């Protein structure tokens, strides 16, 4: 399978520093050993509760947060990926080192990273704080073009106007300031800014969680149009399973820094395999009093990621947990077509 973005055993740990010499006494394991492929043209939804590490994963892929270990490949030809895999199997360090140096995003720095940054963009969660209140919209949108030196001079303004039309705003909004716009319009501006460098891959970090449902639907439809028009690949981070279900091609469910289930949205909704996914689906309220599902209330809360429970991280809250779950961590295994689950006792 070709992959536009591939992460391999990606780990992002944040040290907990204590004492006068600030020595690390522990680690918050925000992203723990995640291997994920995003195919070109895919709309991958990353779903999980707050604190499960979904935003950290998105930002680590963009190298906005330094990974602790692991590899990220972005837009690497599949032959080279195969070469790396075979070299890894042989553990041939002489072969691996130049390959990592040339292709592993996690090892890049400086100019090499900057070139790649043009192809990958981020849209933040809160459109009220992601736009500089002192900059005009035209400056906000043309800043990425200045940084990456893609469009120069007069052309920048016409390109900004073009981008504004693409996201459903008009040219006359360009000389205004962010405070003159509503939440939905600001999110459109943020999307226009992300598109300014004609990226291939965009990470959306809960772009609609600060918006009303009617505006949320507008933004989702806009994203769908843009994706088709420019052949984009999306990583869509959200806490709302229903949003991911309605727009994404595939969904990865995260819990405490791990991916617990991966698959197509229809299949996940119809027969969730991981008990956590089932709990998420059942606790999401649906605006239909007739179709009240058997509600399932999970006991307890998400444990602290600095001290995750041993074995399966979900076992203290899981009704199906046995001794195996408390001792050994379940691997993310392929079950059925395009479906992965990390559970010792899957539901199906």
């Amino acid at each position: 399978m070709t992959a536009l973005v591939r992460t391999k055993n990606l780990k992002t740990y944040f040290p907990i520093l204590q004492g006068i010499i600030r020595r690390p006494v522990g680690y918050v394991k925000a992203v723990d050993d995640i291997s994920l492929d995003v195919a070109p043209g895919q709309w991958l939804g990353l779903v999980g509760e707050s604190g499960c590490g979904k935003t950290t994963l998105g930002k680590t892929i963009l190298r906005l947060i330094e990974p602790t270990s692991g590899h990220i490949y972005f837009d690497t030809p599949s032959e080279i990926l195969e070469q790396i895999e075979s070299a890894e199997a042989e553990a041939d360090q002489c072969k691996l080192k130049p390959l990592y140096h040339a292709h592993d995003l996690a090892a890049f720095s400086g100019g090499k990273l900057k070139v790649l940054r043009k192809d990958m963009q981020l849209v933040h969660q809160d459109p009220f704080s992601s736009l500089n209140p002192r900059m005009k919209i035209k400056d906000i949108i043309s800043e990425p073009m200045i940084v990456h030196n893609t469009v120069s001079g007069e052309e920048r303004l016409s390109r900004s106007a073009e981008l504004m039309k693409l996201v459903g705003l008009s040219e006359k909004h360009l000389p205004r300031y962010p405070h003159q716009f509503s939440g939905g319009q600001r999110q459109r501006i943020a999307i226009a800014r992300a598109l300014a460098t004609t990226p291939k891959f965009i990470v959306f970090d809960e772009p609609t969680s600060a918006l009303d449902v009617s505006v949320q639907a507008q933004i989702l439809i806009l994203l769908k149009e843009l994706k088709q028009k420019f052949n984009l690949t999306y990583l869509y981070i959200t806490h709302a399973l229903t949003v991911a279900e309605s727009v994404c091609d595939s969904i990865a469910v995260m819990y405490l820094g791990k991916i617990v289930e991966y698959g197509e949205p229809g299949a996940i909704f119809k027969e969730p395999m991981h008990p956590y996914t089932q709990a998420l689906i059942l606790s999401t309220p649906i605006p239909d009093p007739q179709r009240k599902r058997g509600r399932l209330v999970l006991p307890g809360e998400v444990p602290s990621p600095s001290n995750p429970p041993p074995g399966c991280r979900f076992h203290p809250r899981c009704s199906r947990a046995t001794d195996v779950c408390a001792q050994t961590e379940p691997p993310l295994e392929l079950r059925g077509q395009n479906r992965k689950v990390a559970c010792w006792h899957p539901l199906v």
Partner: protein
Amino acid sequence: MEKLVQIKGVSVNFYTYEGVVRALNNLTLDIYRGETLGLVGETGCGKTMTAFAILRLIMPPGKIESGSILFNPNGSESVDLLQLSENNIRAIRGSKISMVFQEPGNALNPVYTIGDQISEVILLHRKGEMISRAIADIDSIEGLPGNRWGMLSSYFRRIQRYLLKKIQSNPEARLPLIVQKIPLARRLFWRLNSEAEKTALHMLKEVDIPDAQRILGYYPHQLSGGMKQRAVIAMALACSPKFLIADEPTTALDVTIQAQILELLQRLKNEFNSSVLYITHDLGVAAAICDRVGVMYGGSIVELAEVNELFVTPLHPYTRALLAAVPRPGEEPMPIPGYIPDPTDPPPGCPFHPRCSLARDICRLERPELREVSPGHLISCHVDTGESIDSPSQN
């Protein structure tokens, strides 16, 4: 059914530099005894303003312009909350009507412990009860046979009893007030605080907080969002209010925690036999826990019906559009065109007409009145939507 609260034609305006913001526009709403009424709507439609108007919490530049809010707590006589004096409304806030706020982190004071904050409510509204319990506590110690209590401590207990009796007979008595102002001497009232703390502990257990005794001494930052919201709910229910206003209590929480809190609210509502005004923007939550649901737009109710009726046969075009915009499994969300109108310059006539697909000439000129289309189902729309929307879908 009996009406607990009757909101009649309430209008709230905010006089800002940009112009007059009409937050509530001739709002009329009845809340029955023992029901859960949901208020749904988008940002800025006046949901929270309704709650604030009931509790008279609207601060300048906001002003309640007209209308009345009749509150009938025990079925005998109703009082108009808008006509009450500041002292009288204070006695009602937190005891007969209480509120759970949206952001549990902001609703709690960061420099007091959870126990202190719940005790404060109890000492404010249930002081008489606490005093009689403290006196009973002293009496029980003195009455014990063969108790060799020393001279000094018995003397202190007698002073405590005297002071408590003094407050009991006259809450405004001067001596206890002076004693409470003097450092060290104010410790003579410690029994009062410990009784309040005991009640606070009971409340925390009531809202299913594990290890409640320890949580009592915790500061808000030591608790997770769900736990904080439970503590806020415990505080709101400390005086067993007749009417609880919940303003988006689960918006800041995760879905699994939200499910826990919703179940808790439902259980407590039945236990305390109170009415709940549940404000939310999530139609799914409203469908899950409400008996009746009112949809708000532009500062007034546009549709009000039983929960089953509203979600199955919505009549107002806005309700239909809002329901279609919610993403559901297997269905594409349908956006509502346009944006919420500028509150300083609302469109003339029906506030929804610029975004409405059924708008006619009359909608641009006249604001529709709330009318009853079938028993218990009210809408405010000029268009007879029952036929006009169904027919194109049949064709």
